[in-house]
């Protein structure tokens, strides 16, 4: 019966074919646990969608009732506190997972040919995620929601010629208000579905070029294993470990990621002492503040996110992969990560003469690591070839290209 029904469907729709392809999808057998974070990002997306849809059933997008409706969810809706804390913690979890996913890509050089489109679709996903998170943050209509949105929409004033108009157009009003809240809500509900679509594209690209692996050298046929059951079970284990950390925060420290000031209703007449964005925007915010000129700061901040897309061209080494065989690249990677932490710190503290200078140096280091990469990777290549001692698989690859 089932077989006949399946045959009927398969004649009209490639169901078995699709399931078979997905399950048998060939994957390198040497992927370490850093490769778990892609599927974890997918899991967090689902958590955000499901909790978000239920929150939307109780939330009211109106400046007079938005803040109250969050408290209604927290106090009166059955397990509303769980939905809301899962969603607010999920936003941070999403960025944490995606940043680790990106750091893995950078460390192992997974962005390199032929995976440029995979990397760029991921870059698009990051931008969508940032936009979605930013708009979602306005919805609780707390002080930090309001002032964060006011500061960030105000940045568009730097647009040449039409600055003033662009800001009004974005806000729907002369200042952040009811029109802003309702449009951010509409878009915050829409964007996740756009993200789902973009994830599909990301996965199609992945299934075309297949996963990279720590060595950076394409593996031989015998070292390729089917995704199921090997990586399904490995991902399940990863999901378990992730959920322990995630629910640890949700149940025991859910206010860790909620600014105290956001528990005060938005008040356009009173600026909070210190406006800080959420932790995941801090390094980029620090770059924005490091440039004395508004337009320059906005351009620098935009570039700081977009410059990742240039990685496949900035990395000019013929040594395959990322940091595994390449000591200089590895040093550069860790400088980049450490510098990111410095920027995060600078973004979090109120600007003083000292932190401004630190921020400016860190901004230069940030762009410096990208812009020096073409020279460093070339120098490193000739150094490594001269030094010798590269694995046979790498030499074979270089020999072919020579």
């Amino acid at each position, binding site marked *: 019966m089932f077989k006949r029904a399946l045959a009927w469907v398969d004649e009209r729709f490639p169901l078995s074919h699709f399931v078979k392809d997905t399950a048998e999808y060939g994957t390198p057998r040497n992927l370490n646990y850093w490769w778990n974070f892609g599927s974890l990002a997918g899991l967090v997306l689902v958590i955000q969608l499901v909790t978000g849809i239920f929150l939307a059933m109780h939330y009211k997008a109106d400046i007079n009732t938005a803040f109250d409706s969050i408290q209604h969810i927290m106090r009166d809706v059955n397990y509303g506190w769980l939905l809301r804390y899962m969603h607010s913690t999920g936003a941070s979890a999403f960025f944490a997972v995606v940043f680790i996913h990106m*750091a893995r890509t950078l460390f192992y050089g997974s962005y390199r040919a032929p995976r440029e489109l995979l990397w760029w679709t991921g870059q698009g996903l990051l931008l969508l995620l940032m936009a979605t998170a930013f708009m979602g943050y306005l919805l609780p209509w707390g002080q930090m929601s309001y002032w964060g949105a006011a500061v960030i929409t105000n940045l568009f004033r730097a647009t040449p010629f039409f600055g003033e108009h662009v800001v009004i157009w974005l806000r729907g009003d002369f200042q952040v208000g009811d029109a802003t809240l309702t449009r951010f809500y509409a878009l915050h509900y829409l964007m996740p579905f756009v993200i789902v679509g973009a994830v599909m594209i990301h996965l199609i690209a992945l299934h075309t070029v297949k996963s990279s692996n720590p060595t950076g050298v394409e593996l031989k046929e015998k070292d390729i294993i089917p995704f199921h059951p090997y990586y399904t079970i490995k991902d399940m284990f990863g999901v378990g470990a992730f959920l322990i950390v995630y629910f640890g925060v949700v149940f025991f420290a859910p206010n860790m990621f909620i600014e105290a000031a956001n528990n005060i209703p938005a008040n356009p007449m009173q600026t909070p002492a210190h406006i800080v964005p959420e932790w995941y925007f801090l390094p980029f915010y620090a770059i924005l503040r490091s440039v004395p000129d508004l337009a320059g700061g906005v351009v620098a901040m935009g570039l700081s996110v977009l410059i990742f897309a240039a990685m496949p061209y900035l990395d000019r080494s013929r040594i395959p992969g990322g940091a595994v065989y390449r000591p200089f690249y590895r040093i550069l990677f860790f400088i980049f990560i450490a510098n990111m932490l410095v920027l995060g710190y600078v*973004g979090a503290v109120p600007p003083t003469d000292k932190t401004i200078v630190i921020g400016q140096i860190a901004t230069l280091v940030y762009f410096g690591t990208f812009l020096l990469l073409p020279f460093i990777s070339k120098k490193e290549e000739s150094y490594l070839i001269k030094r010798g001692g590269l694995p046979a698989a790498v030499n074979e690859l270089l020999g072919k290209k020579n």
Partner: protein
Amino acid sequence: MNKRFLLPMLLCMFSSFAVANEAELDHTPIPTDKASVLRGAEQVITVCGACHGMKYIQYRNLVELGVPKETVDTWRGDKHLNSAVQPGMDAASAQAAYGVVPPDLSLMALAREGGVHYLYSYLMGYKNENGEVKNTVFTVTKMPDILGSATDDPKAREEAAAKAKDVAAFLNWAADPHGEDRKSLGMYVLIYLAIMTVLFYLWKKQIWRKVDAMGKV
């Protein structure tokens, strides 16, 4: 390299919390036991309630918390059980008397950096400087030293401290009334997840045994 960049990542996540508080807060532990919360409820409703309301706490919530119904009845007067806890003084007269509308207390334990420790430090932060009582934690406050923490008498200060702890304990409940449920449910969820994750790990080992036996690539 496996574990090497986990720590920096975590540090990055916490960098936003590394911002120092302006005033040093007193981190005396704030009790969470029912008796303290109930004593705090009485303090907040009968004393603080003269000026401060709690718009997200209804009188029935106090009954649910464990305050005797008769007590709540005397507190609420002719207000409905489903009515939010109203301040004894309306906003206009408060503005006239103090120059500021006293803030709502429902979320106060979450709305200040430092949470309950801020509340305790603030309530105990009054100092008598040459006959003028000032608050050292929130220097521009218009609120008088209700608990009498500015006293020189150690015994009176101890009494004030006990009351301040109770107030902080009650406001902590008010800001997060499901906090206790959350933590007890959380224990079960984490135990379940821990067992599940161990089983997944063993299952993974079982499925991967042949691949693991192949050694490094």
